[in-house]
């Protein structure tokens, strides 16, 4: 409750500072307010996924309110407050009811734009809009690719659009700063009488330097992207999933290594390639990424196809695949993290409101219940019905 009060009070304080002694009309023209909400109802089979459990739940929601203040013709301040509920996921307890999604100042100098603060990280197709339900065919962006955290960068970004002639355009952004790597893990069953206990860790990636480039083609809606970054991942807090995989040797040896690993940082990298085809009648999208630390590499990719077969009705299918490779003195361990096949129907209730019905078949080790990564995969399914609105 205190944190909510602090956030709200801070918001009004910032707004009061930004507002100059102008007429009310002039101030209202400078201040823009936008927002979105996705409210879902989800239910899974025996194995829960991302907070959706065997008992149907309505405690599944994402919302945000964005305040933008045009300081001058070239400068703008943006503050976005967010709210998320993820039912049975431990993230629901870890998140404040209201938190700061972004807070940054943007300055434009000719064709170059700078941002400083807590800035949405330019990464792939959906990273900056991963929770905006009206822009997504499913409740969320592909979860194996757009994992928790890695959403915003605390630092600076610089972007420029370059015309290459004949309607080709390059949109390039570089960034420098740090970001959070959130892991939601399921520990061994003995910690929880329901067969699962989860751990939420938030590790910082420091000294992140990277960028994202989009090549816009003369075909409206078709673009190709590539991006990547290098960073120093703090070892403290890098436990749970990475700890379970890292310690798959003898228990004593794994404990010693874990103690050593908790100190300092380790080098890491994250690279992704994207194809985004967003046309009037259909969409075709695909992305692939490689997330690597010293001894663990996480590979994830997805393909997504959608078709609008009536003015308000569209259908979408999606396949996600992710796997993990770990290397230590016991040799390589590689296992399938997730394979998710999904289908959705979208119905546009109004220009600002979308109804979605989706189903997922999931196989692998990424369930809310702990599945030993060295053992066989498990299978499960879940469904979400949701309404998304944006203004």
């Amino acid at each position: 409750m205190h944190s909510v009060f602090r956030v709200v009070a801070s918001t009004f304080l910032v707004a009061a500072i930004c507002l100059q002694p102008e007429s009310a009309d002039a101030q209202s023209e400078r201040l823009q307010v936008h927002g979105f909400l996705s409210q879902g109802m989800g239910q899974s089979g025996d194995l829960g996924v991302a907070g959706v459990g065997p008992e149907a739940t309505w405690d599944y929601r994402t919302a945000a309110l964005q305040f933008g203040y045009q300081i001058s013709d070239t400068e703008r301040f943006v503050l976005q407050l967010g709210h998320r509920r993820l039912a049975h996921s431990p993230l629901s307890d870890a998140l404040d009811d209201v938190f700061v999604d972004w807070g940054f100042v943007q300055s434009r100098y000719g064709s170059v734009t700078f941002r400083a603060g807590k800035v949405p990280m330019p990464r792939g197709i959906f990273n900056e809009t991963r929770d905006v339900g009206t822009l997504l065919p499913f409740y969320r962006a592909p979860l194996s690719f757009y994992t928790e955290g890695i959403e915003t960068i605390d630092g600076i970004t610089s972007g420029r659009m370059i015309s290459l002639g004949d309607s080709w355009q390059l949109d390039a952004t570089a960034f420098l700063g740090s970001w959070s790597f959130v892991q939601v893990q399921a520990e061994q069953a003995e910690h929880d009488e329901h067969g699962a206990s989860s751990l939420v860790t938030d590790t910082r990636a420091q000294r992140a330097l990277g960028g994202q480039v989009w090549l816009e083609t003369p075909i409206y809606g078709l673009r190709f992207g590539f991006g990547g970054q290098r960073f120093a991942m703090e070892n403290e807090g890098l436990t749970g999933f990475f700890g379970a995989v890292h310690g798959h040797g003898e228990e004593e040896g794994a404990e010693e290594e874990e103690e050593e690993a908790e100190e300092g940082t380790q080098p890491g990298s994250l690279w992704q390639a994207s194809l985004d085809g967003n046309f009037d009648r259909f969409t075709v999208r695909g992305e692939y990424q490689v997330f690597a630390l010293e001894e663990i590499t996480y590979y994830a990719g997805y393909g997504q196809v959608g078709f609008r077969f009536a003015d308000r009705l569209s259908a979408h299918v999606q396949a996600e695949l992710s796997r993990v490779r770990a290397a230590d003195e016991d040799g390589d361990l590689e296992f399938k993290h997730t394979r998710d096949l999904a289908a959705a129907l979208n119905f546009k209730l109004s220009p600002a409101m979308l109804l979605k019905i989706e189903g997922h078949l999931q196989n692998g080790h990424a369930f809310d219940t702990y599945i030993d990564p060295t053992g066989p995969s498990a299978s499960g399914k879940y469904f979400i019905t949701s309404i998304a609105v944006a203004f």
Partner: protein
Amino acid sequence: MKRIILTVAALGLFAAQRLEAQEFQVVVNAGASLTEISRGDLSKIFQKKKNKLPSGESANPVDLGTGAAVRESFSQAVHGRSANQIAAYWQQQIFSGRGVPPEEKASDDEVIAYVSSTPGAIGYVSAGASLGSGVKTLEVSD
């Protein structure tokens, strides 16, 4: 008979083209120095990919409200896509924090009042709208 049908069809097609050409008119503040603008520049200004008029003045685009028939005509003719597609573009821009859409006005009269009182303002109204002294029309070239 065949000749009559072909003539009527040709006249109809001509009428349709004339109608399309006259569905909207682009207006700019009367103090602006330019008299024409390319379709490409006009599209970029309304998508805020360009923030200056060809004459070098800061551009201040203003849209008609969503659902207006004239807006759909403008969107198809200038952007080459539907108003819904442009709305999706703006949602992407807003919720990635990159920018916000142009000012929206509910009627031709409000657009004209805004353009006439705002330096650098550029908008569009229905073809038959009465303009007044504070605005002038722009030729749109390919």
